[in-house]
């Protein structure tokens, strides 16, 4: 019973992690590519972590809580790196399907003028 539950969780985790990577390959431009790895993988990793937690808690060495921390760090770091990647891309004017708002261009050129 335990084995079955663990297997199902691991398969679900692997599936979502795979879909996340698939998004990275399939999406049309840089900004849409960002979505796959930042989101679909959260559930994938979450599912794997729950499996790990159940497995190690039933080994007879007490309850394992390390996984809670992994989740916490993942939720803090994934959005920050996505934000920075996307900000850098906007600054470098990477090709985008959706037109970026005019405001960014304006602020960028103002910042450039300020530096001169």
């Amino acid at each position, binding site marked *: 019973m335990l084995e079955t539950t663990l297997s199902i969780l691991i398969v679900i985790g692997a599936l979502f992690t795979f879909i996340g990577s698939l998004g990275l390959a399939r999406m049309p431009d840089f900004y849409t590519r960002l979505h796959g790895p930042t*989101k679909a993988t959260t559930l994938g990793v979450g599912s794997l972590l729950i499996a790990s937690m159940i497995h190690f808690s039933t080994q007879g060495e007490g309850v394992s809580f390390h996984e809670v921390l992994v989740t916490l760090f993942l939720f803090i770091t994934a959005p920050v790196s996505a934000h920075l990647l*996307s900000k850098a891309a*906007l600054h470098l004017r990477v090709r*985008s399907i959706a037109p970026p708002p005019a405001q*960014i261009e304006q602020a960028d050129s103002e910042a450039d003028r300020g530096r001169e």
Partner: protein
Amino acid sequence: MKHWLLPHPILTPILALIWVLLVNSLSPGAILMGVVLGWAIPLFTLRFWPDEVRVRKPLTLIRFLVVLLYDILIANLAVAWLILRGPRHVHPAFVVVPLELTTDIGISFLANTISLTPGTVSSWLSPDRRSLVVQGLDVKDPHALVETIKRRYEAPLLEVFESC
């Protein structure tokens, strides 16, 4: 009111809890070490956290986190479905969300929330910190998206971090 020995009263228990989780034991030694670290780290990193972090309504924060977890789950399913359907079905767009939040912690909370939830990544904060540019994976109605973000995420954060 800022005390020089305990500049961040909220960070101390959080850091202590993280330490206890890290060593994975509830022994008195681990707890003591956690408390010492929780007291010392904010003291030494004071320059990174000039403003005191204040949580005004913890219950609203907890309710917000529950809503967030649910939304993350839905976001995962929605994005997975969009990826499987293929790139021809997505309509990406940039939307500008006018911000009412002013504190660092409030804005970072909101930006992180947006990146974790349905098909949106926060991409750019204007230099005057008054608006946040959000990239959406599949946006059918930009105004509705801005409305949802403001009502569902910004309103509770305003209550938690900035209400008087």
